[in-house]
């Protein structure tokens, strides 16, 4: 398969014609107006049916991880190590579903970078984690001093190295004591951050009130249009994130019939084998938001098919990500799974276009939604 997605410039060699602009005016879509009657309900459902349940699930999952980490330290064994790893994987899944919410409390106090520091291309974060373990730096095993350390040593990436990286086998015996206590501190830190995110959104007078009632006195959205822009922005920016920050660094596609230079070790969660499970959870999270909020209701009756297309793509992408199973380096060496990765890359770009142009235009946010995000 010749993958042009990562070579978008090739498409541009088909230069536009020199025809006068006026000749294309007939193609302009009819102006659309935001459905202001539907918008408040959609915003409320986004909070009540996606954001709050998502953060609640994350909070519970991190609590379970902290407990499993504690049990591992107190009674190290293969079984308790497996349980801690399993709890880690569960947190990765829950986080991947809600990490798409890169706004509000998640952006405050560097929370989302503290929860997951990624990518770490020069392995600077990894070196810091390794140094902590090598030196037995007790300040990293204490939650209060850990949370003010570098963001790279207190989140999922650091915990993944603790649980799966070189030397992690010591965790099932007594010799991994410090490593285990450091991991427990990270897990507790994640539990704390997840708790803060949930509390911020649960506060009835906080951000959820702003989301539910756009208006002149609202600290976030002066009108429905601004609220709709934020909501669609979650979808558009998250698909961009998956396409540009998660998939592209690891998968180079096929160029002139040959595999490009992949970077399996740039993949998120490659050590724990959760790379594609995380992508799948990203897509499922986006679909849960799209449907949970009832974003279809913002579409005019004659454009409802756009929601069908978006749903079909999200479902297809999540399932395709599930099919790329096993360690990511093995998947990259397998033609069948490479083809699936190419399929995901191509359809992620298509999904972006449908959200950005089709959906954004149809609900009245302009011809190209992200075109209008200023600068």
């Amino acid at each position: 398969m010749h993958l042009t997605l990562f070579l978008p410039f090739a498409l541009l060699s088909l230069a536009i014609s020199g025809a006068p602009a006026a000749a294309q005016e007939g193609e302009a879509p009819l102006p659309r107006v935001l459905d202001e009657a539907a918008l408040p309900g959609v915003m409320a459902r986004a909070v009540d049916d996606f954001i709050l349940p998502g953060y609640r699930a994350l909070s519970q999952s991190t609590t379970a991880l902290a407990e499993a980490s504690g049990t591992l330290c107190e009674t190290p064994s293969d079984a308790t190590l497996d349980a801690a790893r399993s709890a880690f994987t569960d947190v990765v899944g829950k986080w991947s579903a809600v990490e798409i919410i890169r706004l509000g409390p998640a952006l405050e106090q560097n929370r989302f970078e503290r929860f997951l520091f990624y990518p770490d291309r020069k392995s600077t974060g990894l070196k810091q984690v390794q140094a902590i373990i090598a030196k037995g730096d007790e300040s990293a095993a204490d939650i209060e001093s850990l949370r003010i350390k570098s963001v790279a040593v207190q989140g999922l990436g650091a915990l993944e190295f603790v649980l799966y990286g070189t030397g992690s086998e010591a965790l099932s015996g007594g010799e991994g004591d410090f490593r285990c206590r450091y991991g427990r501190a990270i897990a507790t830190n994640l539990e704390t951050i997840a708790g803060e995110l949930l509390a911020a959104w649960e506060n009835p007078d906080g951000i959820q009130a702003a989301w539910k009632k756009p208006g002149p006195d609202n600290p976030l959205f002066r009108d429905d249009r601004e609220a709709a822009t934020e909501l669609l922005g979650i979808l558009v920016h998250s698909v961009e994130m998956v396409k540009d920050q998660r998939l592209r660094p690891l998968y180079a596609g096929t160029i002139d019939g040959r595999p490009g230079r992949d970077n399996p070790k740039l993949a998120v969660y490659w050590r724990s084998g959760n790379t594609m499970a995380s992508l799948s959870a990203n897509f499922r999270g986006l679909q849960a938001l799209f449907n949970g909020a009832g974003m279809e209701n913002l579409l005019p009756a004659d454009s409802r098919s756009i929601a069908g297309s978006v749903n079909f793509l999200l479902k297809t992408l999540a399932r395709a990500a599930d099919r790329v199973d096993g360690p990511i380096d093995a998947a990259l060496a397998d033609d069948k799974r490479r083809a699936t990765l190419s399929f995901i890359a191509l359809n992620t770009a298509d999904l972006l276009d449908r959200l950005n142009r089709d959906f954004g235009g149809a609900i009245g946010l302009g011809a190209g939604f992200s075109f209008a995000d200023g600068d």
Partner: protein
Amino acid sequence: MPRPLHTGCAPTTCGTVDRGTTAPPRSPSPLWGGVGEGSAAGTRLRLKNQIATKTLIDRRSFVRMAGAAWVAALESRGAFALNRTDAVFASAFMAPDGRYGVATLTEAGEIVDRTLLPARAHGMAFSPVSRRAVAFARRPGTYAMILAIDRPAEPVVITAAEGRHFFGHGCFSADGRLLYATENDFAANRGMVGVYDGTAGFARIGEFPTYGIGPHDMALSSDGRTLIIANGGIETHPDFGRTKLNLDHMEPSLTLVDTATGALVEKHALPPALRQLSTRHVDIGADGRIWFACQYEGPRNDLPPLVGHFAKGEAPTFVDLPERTTLALANYVGAIAVNRREGLVGLTSPKGNAAVTLDAKTGAVVREERIADAAGVAAAAHGFAVSSYCGSFKGHPNAVAWDQHIVRLGG
């Protein structure tokens, strides 16, 4: 009555990406004074002059894209035919099929010519001396393209240096020989000015700091000796796309930098009460006065000051806009331009669907228009040319979406 600004941003006590040391002030710090309605009026605060010089987490090399690809993407005829005498404006656009380009336009807002670009462009600059224009890729962009006017010549494409990306704006030196670009040293979270030599194929010959975070627009003083830089104060990193990473601890500032030495001449950091007010665009008046426009990242129901001015050596002053105008601008000025001949300042807000004209002497609002998705603004023969995302340019409809800025080609 306008509500007072929220001042209580939670201090960042949790872990941060460690971002370096504090350098001592290089020059005596002027004071920030005379802030306008709705702000902490009367507060006089000593400036900070903090320059991040190193980072403990030197993460993420930047994936550079091949510059040759952009050249290949140009139309086969190569040179951009800017030599029509009736082309007086240039602006970046998005075509109906989603592709991006740059167009020139007449005084009436009709397209003269256009060419494709491989990625979205943002700001442009023009040198009346060398008759060259430049279009910068939108942040976090890796390209800029320099177009020769009046003569057939292949456009020159420059790519961002390793560890840098463009922020979407820049300007030429007074003699037209050098090109200055605002850039991000993203590993160190430090604004930089990249210097490119137009006599040597726009090779990158040096760089110096902007003495702030997240520089955006930049202008050259009338005497050509000082760059006036709007450091928006917002941290971004290419690994996170356009996500604004530090909205709860922004550091906006305006800096004046000596073009000969790269040394800091003046720095005006916004006071803590206005630290969520991103200083983003600048232009220069006929008298050399610096005009700047802002975008507010704080609570939407605040009424922050949005536009101000100052002369070299004096503290910036905000224009005391009427509440109606502040509301019309939706706390977000997308572009600013000065019509030097007529002594007017033009502002646009795509979020507020508004174009506002001020008297440069008094700051009084002389005109306020509702223009859907108002994007760029540039001085016209009379008043201003205003473009829109919907395609209108000076009221003339076009089947493209105009990007955020317009450059006037000469005079």
